[in-house]
């Protein structure tokens, strides 16, 4: 990699975990560089404003509002910073809540270091990172159920058949390359579909999405 490393900022209230991630990221690759870390929401907001990292690895559960609060306070002033949520929980309300607060991806803490690096690099290039479980949640949220609330904005509240196919394969554990081969499209197109799904997940008013978000007191 001749390019500049991706500058990463760690936010997690567990010092031990931060140290672990930092050590892993530093040892296995030159692609990413940890430029700072924070253990509280306040520190994180200040640190992000000061260091201007490329990617913030953000813990979902923290005292004082957690990752969603950091997103709410940091994003308006730092629109170019990309957030990737990292959490032990993969409960729907957690995942959807941070995505709707503006994170571009969600991975669980059991992810392998190499996968984490790949995810960081991908979000820094503007892609979205959907774990299979997140893909499953989104499919679930956009499912057509009998008796569901009427669709108010088809542009945001419905997935195209193609987006659905891509999500389904993501949930089945396929990599982008494999999805592209399976659907006879290019990897770039897969990325476009995923980004579009991310946008809909963030902006749609579908009942399931807002319910999951409001379970974590976030709308």
């Amino acid at each position, binding site marked *: 990699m001749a390019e500049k490393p991706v500058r990463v900022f760690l936010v997690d209230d567990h010092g031990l975990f931060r140290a672990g991630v930092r050590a892993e990221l530093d040892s296995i690759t030159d692609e990413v560089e940890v430029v700072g870390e924070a253990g509280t929401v306040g520190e994180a907001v200040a640190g992000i404003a000061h260091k201007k990292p490329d990617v913030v690895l953000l813990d979902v559960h923290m005292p004082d509002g957690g990752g969603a609060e950091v997103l709410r306070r940091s994003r308006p002033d730092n629109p170019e910073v990309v957030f990737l949520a990292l959490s032990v929980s993969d409960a729907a309300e957690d995942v959807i809540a941070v995505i709707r607060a503006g994170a571009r991806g969600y991975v669980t803490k059991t992810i392998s270091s190499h996968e984490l690096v790949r995810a960081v690099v991908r979000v820094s290039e503007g892609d979205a990172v959907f774990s299979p479980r997140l893909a499953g949640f989104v*499919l679930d949220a956009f499912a057509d159920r009998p008796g569901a609330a009427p669709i108010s904005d088809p542009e945001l509240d419905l997935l195209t058949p193609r987006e659905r196919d891509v999500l389904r394969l993501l949930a089945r554990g396929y990599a982008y390359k494999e999805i592209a081969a399976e659907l006879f499209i290019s990897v770039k197109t897969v990325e476009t579909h995923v980004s579009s799904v991310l946008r809909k997940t963030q902006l749609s008013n579908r009942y399931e999405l807002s319910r999951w978000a409001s379970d974590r007191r976030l709308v």
Partner: protein
Amino acid sequence: MVDADLERVARDQADDDLKVRRRRTGRAVAGVAGGIADHLGIGVLWTRMAFALLAAFGGAGVLAYGLLWVFVPQARNEPKPVEVTVKEKQQARGLLAMGIGLAVGVGALSGMLNGWVAGGIAVTLVGAALVWREADEQQRRRWTKSGVVGAVVGSGGRSALVRVLTGGMLVVTGIVVFLARSVNLDQMQFALAAVLAALVGVAVLTVPFWLRLVRDLGEERTQRIRTEERAEIAAHLHDSVLQTLALIQKQSEAPREVLRLARGQERQLRSWLYGPSGYGRGRPVEGAQAGGAGGTPEATSLSEAIERACGEVEDQFAVKVQHVVVGDCQLDERLTGLVYAAREAAVNAAKHAGVGEVSVYAEVEPETVEIFVRDRGKGFDPDTVPADRHGLADSIRGRMERNGGELRLRTAPGEGTEVQLRMPRVSVGS
């Protein structure tokens, strides 16, 4: 425990910030006016003045003050004592005298009360105020020095006793004066009235005692609930996490075993915390032991069944089985067969693929349920499987076909394997 206490203090503090609490320091009578002033964020002089002026309207201010005294609890802890200047103190006393004077005077002038009745009531009120104030004082001492239990007279010493007795005497005198002057009675009625008056006197004097009794009961109950909750969490962590950590230490020579233990424990804790009937979702249904802590009830929904099957495979073969379920439905005989088939497919992947991760994806559609079991492992050529290896053929394909489902297989050497299972659903609602 220290942490818990600190936490309690912090919570009480937050509680005090939200609700009206009577002041504990810097009070003229009972801290009611101060408490309201703090709550509204205005100067205490204004609230005191309001009470004093209201007292002119048939004693409304006095009544309101008394009711607030009874029903608004004292602040538990004040961040810093309220500083009172001499001038403020004088103002407060002046307003207090003015309030009582207005209540009595206006009442007497307007003819609502004749002078003696008003005098009796005023004396009673002053007596009651003395006793109640002493009770507040007692409660405060009890909070500062725990372990001192006093109902009305506690550890206040002689002066407290004197104050309480004086208060009591004043109440009795007031009632007697009230009776003697306002009612003309024959003997029978007088006896009745005397008994009644005594009862009223006792009731007035013991108000603080009853209030404290009720409050203490409530407090004790919440305390007990908290303790029980803590004990439950501790017991659960002991039975699960600590045991597993001990096992992991013993097995530290065998990384595979450590991985298996850690995964199993993680799954169990996760379902205890976040599962459908888990701890983090509010109270679990009585009897439904959350998570895989042993003795779990039979799964009734497809998603639960799949989760459990994947967990079993993880435990047995020390691989990660990542499962995603979209939609959900009730489990019936066919779907149970489907889940068993999927489990078998995952077992095959775990045994033969030679990789650490298997993906299981299930999707419930109106007509069918599909499950995909996929690994990125060795793969194989289906035609070259020896005839004596019946795993895939019998237990998976056979099971699917018996239940009316179908199986497709995608694999090639070096390409990984994906088993696709599809089972039609029994039409719902027919």
